[in-house]
C-alpha cells in the first residue's frame, strides 16, 4: 500500500524524464510529419545528383499547406544540419505560395541552393523516423555521405572535450571535497553544543546564499587586486599576483565551496553514528591514534565518503553557471552546452543526447556505488 506513491513518484520523476530524454535523442519525426509528400518522392532517390522534378513539386505542395507551428521545428532540424536551411525554406515557402497546388515549380530558380545535392540529402536523411545523429554529434561524430561514422572536421565541435573536462572538473572537486570534508565532518562529530552548530552552519551557509552573491564574493576575494592576492603579495609569498579566478583554479574553488555541504553532511551522519567507544577500544588494544584512525575510523566513515562523493560528483557534472562566472576560456561544462541547445535553439535532440550521456555516466557511477557500498554492507545490518 505504501508502495503506490513510491511507484508513482519513480514513474513521474525518474522513468518519465528518462524516457523523454531517450526519445528526444533518437526520434526524428519533425520533418517527415510536415513533408510527407516530399518524403514519399525521395523514397527511391539514390542520393546522387538532384532528385527529379517530382520531388521539387512535392516539396512545394508540402510547404504550401504546412502548419506553421509544425514547420518551424522541422526547419530548425534541417537548419541544424546545414546552416542557412531555415532561410532557404522560408524563401521556398513564399515562392510555393505563389503557385497553385500541383503546378510545376522550378526550385533552382527560386534559390540555386536547390541545385546542391547536400540539401536534398539532408531532407532525405531527416525523414527517417529515428536517427543517431544527435548521439553521434554529442561526441563530435557524424555520418559521412556514405553513411559511415566519422569524426567531425577539426574545430567544428568540442563536445567530447567538454564532456571529458566536465568529468575532470567534477572529479577534482569531488576529490578536494573529500580531502576537506572528511576531516571537517569528523571535527563536527567530535564537537558538541554551540561549536558543532557553528561548524555545521558555516558549511551550510553557501547553500543559503544566492549564486550571484557567492560568485561576486569569490571575485572580490580572488581577483588580481583581491584580498587573497593582497595577502599573498603582502606576506611576500609572491611578487606578482597569482591568477586564482577566471581559470580552472577559480572554478574548483568556487564549486568546492558550494558542494562541500553535500560531502560533509553524509560523512557527518555516518561518523556521528559510529559508536563512541570504538576509538578508545582500538587504543586499549594498542593502536596509536593514527593507526586507529586508518584501521577503524576511516573504513567506518567510507560509506559516508562514498555517498558524499557520489552526491558531489553528480551535482558537479550538472554545474554551469558557476564555471561560466568564475571560469576561464576552457572551463565551460557540458551543462552549459545542454542549456544552449535546450534554451537558445530549442534543439531538443542535441540537448537530449548530451543529457543522456550525463545520465549514463551517473547511472554507471550509481552501479559502482551500489557495488562498493554492498561490499561493506554489514556495517549497517
Amino acid at each position: 500500500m505504501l508502495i503506490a506513491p513510491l511507484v508513482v513518484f519513480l514513474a513521474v520523476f525518474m522513468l518519465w524524464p528518462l524516457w523523454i530524454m531517450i526519445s528526444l535523442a533518437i526520434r526524428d519525426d519533425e520533418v517527415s510529419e510536415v513533408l510527407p509528400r516530399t518524403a514519399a518522392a525521395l523514397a527511391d532517390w539514390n542520393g546522387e545528383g538532384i532528385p527529379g522534378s517530382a520531388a521539387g513539386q512535392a516539396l512545394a505542395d508540402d510547404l504550401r499547406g504546412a502548419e506553421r507551428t509544425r514547420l518551424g521545428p522541422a526547419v530548425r532540424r534541417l537548419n541544424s544540419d546545414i546552416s542557412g536551411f531555415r532561410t532557404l525554406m522560408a524563401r521556398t515557402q513564399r515562392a510555393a505560395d505563389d503557385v497553385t497546388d500541383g503546378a510545376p515549380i522550378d526550385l533552382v530558380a527560386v534559390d540555386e541552393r536547390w541545385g546542391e545535392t547536400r540539401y536534398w540529402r539532408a531532407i532525405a536523411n531527416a525523414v527517417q523516423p529515428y536517427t543517431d545523429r544527435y548521439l553521434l554529434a554529442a561526441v563530435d561524430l557524424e555520418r559521412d555521405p556514405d553513411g559511415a561514422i566519422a569524426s567531425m572536421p577539426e574545430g567544428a565541435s568540442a563536445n567530447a572535450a567538454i564532456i571529458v573536462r566536465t568529468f575532470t572538473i567534477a572529479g577534482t572537486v569531488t576529490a578536494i571535497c573529500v580531502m576537506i570534508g572528511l576531516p571537517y565532518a569528523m571535527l563536527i562529530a567530535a564537537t558538541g553544543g554551540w561549536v558543532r552548530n557553528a561548524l555545521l552552519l558555516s558549511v551550510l551557509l553557501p547553500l543559503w546564499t544566492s549564486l550571484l552573491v557567492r560568485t561576486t564574493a569569490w571575485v572580490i576575494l580572488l581577483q588580481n587586486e583581491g584580498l587573497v592576492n593582497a595577502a599573498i603579495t603582502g606576506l611576500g609569498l609572491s611578487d606578482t599576483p597569482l591568477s586564482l579566478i577566471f581559470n580552472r583554479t577559480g572554478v574548483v574553488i568556487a564549486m568546492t565551496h558550494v558542494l562541500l555541504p553535500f560531502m560533509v553532511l553524509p560523512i557527518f551522519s555516518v561518523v556521528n553514528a559510529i559508536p563512541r567507544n570504538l576509538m578508545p577500544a582500538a587504543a586499549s588494544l594498542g593502536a596509536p591514534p593514527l593507526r586507529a584512525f586508518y584501521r577503524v575510523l576511516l573504513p567506518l566513515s567510507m560509506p559516508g565518503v562514498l555517498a558524499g562523493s557520489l552526491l558531489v560528483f553528480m551535482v558537479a557534472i550538472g554545474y554551469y553557471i558557476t564555471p561560466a562566472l568564475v571560469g576561464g576560456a576552457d572551463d565551460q561544462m557540458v551543462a552549459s552546452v545542454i542549456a544552449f541547445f535546450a534554451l537558445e535553439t530549442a534543439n531538443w535532440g542535441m540537448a537530449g543526447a548530451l543529457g543522456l550521456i550525463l545520465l549514463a555516466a551517473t547511472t554507471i557511477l550509481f552501479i559502482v556505488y551500489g557495488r562498493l557500498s554492498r561490499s561493506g554492507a554489514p556495517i549497517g545490518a
Partner: protein
Amino acid sequence: MGISGSSSFLAAVAIITGLSSGVAAARDLTVVSWGGNYQDVQREIYFEPFSEQNETPILEESWNGGYGVLAAQMQGGAPSWDVIQVEAEELELGCFDGIYETIDWEMMGGEDQFFDSTVSECGVGAIVWSTVLAYDGDRLDAEIDGWEDFWDIETYPGSRGLRRGPKLTLEIALMADGVPPEDVYDTLRTDEGVDRAFAKLDEIKNDIVWWEAGAQPLQLLASGELAMTAAYSGRIFAANETEDRNFEVVWNGSIYAVDSWVVLSGSPNKDAAMEFIRFASLAENQAKMPPEIPYGMSNVDVSNMLSDDVLEQLPTAPANLEGALETDVNFWVDNVEELTGRFNAWLAQ
C-alpha cells in the same frame, strides 16, 4: 497493492494532472520581462499606470530569454504567459513558427510612428540596446577609438572582456580587423570571413576574460581586472550614475539590437495584451524610460521629449548610430549552432 493501493495511485495521478490543468483557468494579464532594475522601471512607467487606467490587474513574471523556453511553453498546450519581451532571435523564430499573434499596426499608431528596425509582423519594438566598448576613465587616460585599440594590448596593457559566445564576438573581431560595419555580415557569411574572425581572436586569446552575465564586465572594470571590455551601454551609464564611476563608452563599432513585445498566440487575454503593448509604445510613456536607464526607444517621437544629456547616452542618438552595426538576426538564427560549436572548439584549443 490491493484496492486501497490502486485508489491512492489514482489519487496521486489526479493530484498531478490537477496541478498542471488548473493553471489553464482564466487568469490575469501576465507580462514577462527581463527582471532586475529594468523591470522595476517598467513596473513604474508601464505596468502600474496601465493597471490603474484600465482597472486590469497585471501579473508580472521575469525570464532570461531563450527560444526553447517559449517553444516548451507552446508545446505544453496552454501557455501561462500573455505578453513577453523578447530578443530579436526569439521574435524571428517564433514568428516563423506562428506562436505569436499578428500585430495590428494601425492600432499601435501606424508603422511610421516607429523606427524601421522596430517594426515587424509579430512584435512591436520596445527598446534598442547596444553593446559597446567600455573602459574606466579613472584608470585609462587615453582616447580610445574603437575595436582596433581593444586589440592593441601593447599600447593599452591589461585584460579584455568579451561575452562568451560567437555572437558579438565575431562581429567585433572583424571590425577590429578593419571590416567596415556594413560589410561585417557579408564577410561572416563566407567561410573565409569566419576564419578571419577567429584568426583575429587568436591574436588576443590569452588576454580575454569571458563574461556571461551583464553585470560582470562592469564589476571587473571597476576592480581593475579588465582594462577594456564589451558591455551593455545601458548598464554603463547606470553605473556612472549610481556608483559614481567614470566609465567611458566608445560608440564607434557598437552593435545594437531591438527587444520587442510579443503576444503568445491563443492568449485568453489577447485584447488586453495588445492594449498593453499600445500603452507601452506611446511616446509619452516611453519617454520616461531613458532618464532611468538609457535605452533607445522605438517610438520616433520620444527623442523630442528628452534632454540632450539623456539623448546623447542612447544607442539611437544619430551621433551614436554612426559607425554602429545592427545585429543581423537572420544570420544568427541560421548559424548560431554551427558557430557556437566552432567557438567552443576554438576555446578548447
